[in-house]
């Protein structure tokens, strides 16, 4: 009962945040709305007992990636002309249609699934770690190498710019 109430509250808040992302006129407010949405999602994960996912959601997305967004927005300091005007363009309509299609598709896909009885124990730190370091250790290592390559690439580009 409590969980259901919390779920609906958080879900509504997350959607409000999502609307804020696209409706805000200032880039900074959009970024902050996205951070808000991410927090709501993290709370939903906590409800599902997926603590690791919740922590990573906040740590990586809200704390690191969104911080970089904010950093860039801060440095841009857009003037009023650059913000553009809200108007219905062809792109806007096409985008709305695409989003609506996906929403309907997802709704049908989810509706067909049976809802699980109570929380699953797959989201705990220990469970995820065991999966990650035994079953998927190769993928894990390859991802790490990929990230390393990305870091080196970024450094090279930065050095050339300086």
């Amino acid at each position, binding site marked *: 009962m409590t969980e259901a109430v919390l779920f609906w509250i958080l879900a509504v808040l997350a959607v409000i945040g999502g609307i804020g992302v696209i409706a805000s006129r200032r880039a900074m*407010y959009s970024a902050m709305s996205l951070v808000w949405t991410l927090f709501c999602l993290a709370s939903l994960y906590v409800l599902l007992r997926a603590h690791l996912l919740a922590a990573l959601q906040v740590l990586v997305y809200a704390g690191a990636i969104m911080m970089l967004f904010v950093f860039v927005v801060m440095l841009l300091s857009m003037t009023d002309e650059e913000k553009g005007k809200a108007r219905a363009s062809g792109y806007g309509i096409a985008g709305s249609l695409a989003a609506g299609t996906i929403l309907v598709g997802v709704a049908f896909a989810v509706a067909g699934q049976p809802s699980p009885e109570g929380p699953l124990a797959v989201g705990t730190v220990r469970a995820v770690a065991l999966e990650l370091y035994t079953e998927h250790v190769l993928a894990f290592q390859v991802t790490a190498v990929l990230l390393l390559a990305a870091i080196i690439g970024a450094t090279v580009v930065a050095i050339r710019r300086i």
Partner: protein
Amino acid sequence: MAAVNPPASEIGGLQEETLQSRRAVGGEGSGRRSRLSPLRLARAVVLVGVVFGAAAGLILTIVFGLAHLLGIGGTEWVGLLNIVGVAFILVMMTATLLIVAERKWSARMQNRVGPSRARLFRNEKWAFYGIPHLAADGLKMIFKEDFVPPGAARLVFSLAPVLAFVPAFALIAVVPVGPDIMAFGTEVRFQVARIDMGILFIFAVASVAVFGATLAGWSANNNFGMLGALRAAAQMISYEVALALTLVGVIIVFQTIRLEEIAAFQDGTMWGGLIPAWGIFFQPFALILFLAAAFAEVKRAPFDLPEAESEIIGYFVEYSGMKFGLFMFAEFIEIVALSALIVVLFFGGWSIPWVSHEALQSWLAIDVGLGTDWAALAAAFVGLFAFIAKMMFFVWLQMVIRWSFPRFRYDQIMNLGWKALLPLSLVNLVVTAAAVVLDPTLSLALAIGLGQAFLLIVVIISADSPKRGMMAAAQHDHPQEVSCST
């Protein structure tokens, strides 16, 4: 002939008092200061002990007493009681008192008297170490003009202090401040939230704390604030990496990321009762790195670049009144939370060295004759007291550091973070992992840790003495040195 100070009656009571206090501290015509007498020291120790004891008793009463009365022992509702007992009483109160304590302690370090003017009922004797200044400060903050600079992003400007305050406050949620107890049929814990993420929660919350400082600087439409925001963002993101990596070593040693399990583990001993199983003995090196990274996260000197008041005045340059107060308060809360974290991770949490919680409890129950229930309560009290005492030591340490060191420069701080702390914490991680894999009983890890500690002490001692020698040489022998000039 020579004019001396005019008589006291002419300059009025307040000024005369200032003169007297100046003489009491500096001594008239003397640059030397009075020494701390054993009597004053003893009095201070007793006073501090009474205060800590009162705090421990208060927490125990609120959390256990209410849980027992309401019959909610063992349920999640104990977490709510802990929000009152731990978060509000311990953290809030300590942070509040720190506002005065910092001023008072910096005054001590600087040979001043510190805040002493606000008194209760204007009574000369009721200065209470400056604590009434809290009321004065608070009133000042509340009644100051709430200024929003023109051109500011108003919503973000108002939101930023809250964004700085909340993560600082949330940090304490996963820290266990006392042992779990079971007495009179009521089971309680002294931890707000007992969650699976443990340390990950700390990282996650700490990573969000940067928004407050950054948005405050950005939203104020001030170039100095903007520089402060950039400094804050760069510094906090950089040190987050090192902060997390230093703790991975601790996680490997204790084999868990749940703080209550880490604290419980440190209640034991190693090598047959020779050495307490505290984190400091396994990971002394990580402690040093963690302290550096954590100070940078809290943005206190020598890492106070985002608010460097002599350079850029700080990211909160445009804030006034209670909005500024929230930034200040968040800093103090971070100090307390950080100290609590250090204690839990490295200094055994609520445990006392060589005496395990069970041993203490049974000794109290049987040898002292308190009976099981009262012994459990007494043992919990001792645990809480130990935790508070250790925590306050690190609060004090942070204050001493704050008031002794100059500030790094921006490039120096980046170099320190990326080129020193990060590689060193990686080395520490590898060494620790190897030691734990080779010897799962942790003996090897402990030996390496003690070796590190020994090495650190040697390095510190040897690095200090030639410096002093050189300083002395420069002072006393410089006639020879200066003869060879243009």
